[in-house]
C-alpha cells in the first residue's frame, strides 16, 4: 500500500505530499526528505548517462516499520517519491513502474495547465484524484 506519495521539485522542495495514515505524516515527510540525499547521490553517480526512467529502491529504511521507498526522477529533475508498506509483498517492480508512469503523466497534465506556475504547489483536483486512487488501490 502506498502510504505516501510526494513530488519534489528540482530545488528539493516539495510540490506535493500526501500520505494516507495521517497520524504519521511527519514521519513520512522526514523519510521523504532523507531519501532525497540518496537520490542526489545516485544522480551524481550517474554522471552523463541520463536515464529517464530511473528508479531508486532503498530497501528497508526502518526495519521496524517495514517501509520501502521508491523514487523516480524525471528529466527535469522532478522527483516522485513513493513510500510503500512492505507488508504488501504483492507489489512487483512493474507495478511500481506503472504507478510512477501514471504519476508522471498526471504531472505533465498539470504542467499543461497555463494557470499553473512551475514551482507552485500542485493543487489540481485531477492530480489529487489520481493520487488518491493510487493510494487506495495499491492497498
Amino acid at each position, binding site marked *: 500500500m502506498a502510504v505516501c506519495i510526494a513530488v519534489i521539485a528540482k530545488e528539493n522542495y516539495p510540490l506535493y505530499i500526501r500520505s494516507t495514515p495521517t497520524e504519521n505524516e511527519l514521519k513520512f515527510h522526514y523519510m521523504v526528505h532523507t531519501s532525497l540525499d540518496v537520490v542526489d547521490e545516485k544522480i551524481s553517480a550517474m554522471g552523463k548517462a541520463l536515464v529517464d526512467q530511473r528508479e531508486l529502491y532503498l530497501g528497508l529504511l526502518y526495519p521496524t516499520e517495514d517501509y520501502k521507498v521508491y523514487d523516480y526522477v524525471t528529466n527535469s529533475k522532478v522527483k516522485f517519491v513513493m513510500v510503500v508498506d512492505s507488508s504488501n509483498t504483492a507489489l512487483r517492480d512493474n507495478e511500481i513502474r506503472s504507478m510512477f508512469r501514471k504519476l508522471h503523466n498526471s504531472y505533465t497534465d498539470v504542467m*499543461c495547465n*497555463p*494557470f*499553473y506556475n512551475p514551482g507552485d504547489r500542485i493543487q*489540481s483536483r485531477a492530480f489529487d484524484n489520481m493520487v488518491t486512487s493510487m493510494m487506495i488501490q495499491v492497498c
Partner: protein
Amino acid sequence: MEVAAGGGCGAGPPLLLSESEQQCYSELFARCAGAASGSPGPGPPEATRVAPGTATAAAGPVADLFRASQLPPETLHQITELCGAKRVGYFGPTQFYVALKLIAAAQSGLPVRTESIKCELPLPRFVMSKSDAEIRFGNPAELHGKKVQIPYLTTEKNSLKRMDDEDKQQETPSPTMSPLASPPSSPPHYQRVSLSHGYSKLRSGTEQMQPASYETRQPIGQPEGSSSEGPGSKPLRRQASLIRSFSVERELQDNSINYPDEPWRITEEQREYYVNQFRSLQPDPNSFISGSVAKNFFTKSKLSIPELSYIWELSDADCDGALTLPEFCAAFHLIVARKNGYPLPEGLPPTLQPEYLQAAFPKSKWECAIFDSYSESMPANQQPCDLNRMETSVKDMADFPVPTQDATTGDDKQALKSTVTEPLPKDLSEDTATNSGLLPPPPALPPRPCQTQSEPVTEADLHPQLNRAPSQAAESSPAKKDAPHAQPPSKPIRRKFRTENQTTESQEPAAAVGGAASAAVVKPHPTVQKQSSKQKKAIQTAIRKNKEANAVLARLNSELQQQLKEVHQERIALENQLEQLRPVTVL
C-alpha cells in the same frame, strides 16, 4: 355518458363531466394524490378526514400541475378559490375536478367563473406531465410562444430550482421520442424550441412525440383526444417530419434530455458569443488557442487563479495545453457560470464535453466552413456575393461592402460600425434567421479589430473588406452588449462580464486604439434608436472599462511585487554565499 362528480361534497357547483374528462381528471387526481401518499382520495364521504395526502391530492403535486398549465398565478389563485379547495382546506376530488375544469376554461380564454364550467370545454392542457392523457393534450402551439424572447438566462436561473424538482419527479421519455430542438436547416423551428429555452419546452416537446407510441398502446378517450388534438396534431406532424430528417441530432438530444443540468447547457446566443471571442483570439475556428493566450484572456474574468486552473483542468479534455473551439466554449461557459455564482462541478458536465458541443452545434461548424471559404479566397468581390447569399436580415450588412469599399478612414468605419450596431440589436431580437446571419459578417479574418483601426491606410489598399469585417467583429461584441441591454435587465452580470471582456480586450492591443473603439461605440449615431440610452450605456461602458483597467493594473502590480520579492530573496541568498566565500579566499 355524463357523470355528476362529487355533487354531494358540499363544495362547488355540480360538475358535468364527459367520459374522457372524467377519465382524465381521475387519472390526474390519482397522480397527484398518489404522488404524495399513494392512495387517491376515495371521495366525498371521506371528506371529514382532512389529513392531507390520504384522502386528498397533496398540495405539492397539485400546485405543480397547476403551474404546468401555464396560467398566470392570479388565475390559479382564482381557480383554487373557486373550486373550493381554499374553503375546505384541501383538494378533494370535487375540488380537483372543478379546478381542472376551470383551468381548461381559462386556457380556452373563458373567464374563470363557475358558470364557465358548465359548458363543454376541451381538456386542460399541461406543459409538463408524464400521464398519457395530459401528453395527449399537451399543447405544442403554446410552447412555441413568445417566451423565447424572454432572456433565457432568467428562465434558466429562476426556474432552475423548480425545474430540477420537476425533473426529479419525472422520468426521461422513452427512446422512441425524438428531439424537437432541430438544427439549422429549420431555423424558425429551432428558434422556437431551442435548447436554450428550456428544459420544460424540450421535455414537453419530446413528450408530444410520445402520443405516437402511446396512442397505439392506450386508446383511451380517443374522441376527445382527437378533437383537442386537432390543433396539436399539425405541429406534431410537422415536428415528426423534421425529426425524422435529423437522426443525428436525435441521438444527441436523447442524451441531452437525460441531463437535467440546466446551467451547464450552452445556449445558442452564448455559443455565438463564445465563438466570437474565440475568433478574436484565434482567427481560425478549427485551430487552437494556446495556453498563454487563453490564460491572459481568462485572467480578465477576475476569478482566482486556483479556480481558473480548475476550470482549465475541466475543459481541456485532452490536456494538451491548448483549447479547441468546443473546449474554449466549455471553459468560457464554466467561467460565466462561476461568475454568476454557480459552484464549479466535480467533473465536466456532459453538455460541456467537446464531443457533445461539437455535435450539438454543427451550425457553427457550418458557418466556420463558410468562414474558411472566406479566408481562403478573399477577393473583395466575392464577399458581397457571399454575404448576399446569407439570411435576409444580413441584407443591411451585405449592402455595406458595396458602399464602403472605398472606406478606409476611421470615420467611415465608425459610420459602418454604427450602422452595423443598428441592425445587429434588431437581428438579435429576431429569429434564428437573423442569428445565423449575424455570425457570417464577422468572418475569420486575421487582423485584430482594433489593429485595423490603427492601421487603416496600410490595409485599406489591399483589403478594404478586411477592415470592415473585423470592425464588424468588434461591433458584434458591443452589439451583443447592446442587445442584452435591449432585453429586460435580467442578466446584468453576464452583460457586465461581456462588456468587461470586450473592453479589456480592446484595451490590450492599444489603449488609445481601444479608446477609439469604445469611443466609436460611444459616438451616438442619429439613425440609432434609443440614443439617450446608448449614451448612458456608453458612460457605463467607460466606467466599466476604467474599472477593468484598474483591476488589470492592480493585478500587474501585485505580480510585479511578487517578482520583486523573489528577486530580493535571490539577491539575499547570493549575498550570503558571497559572504561565506569571501573569508575563504582571504585566508
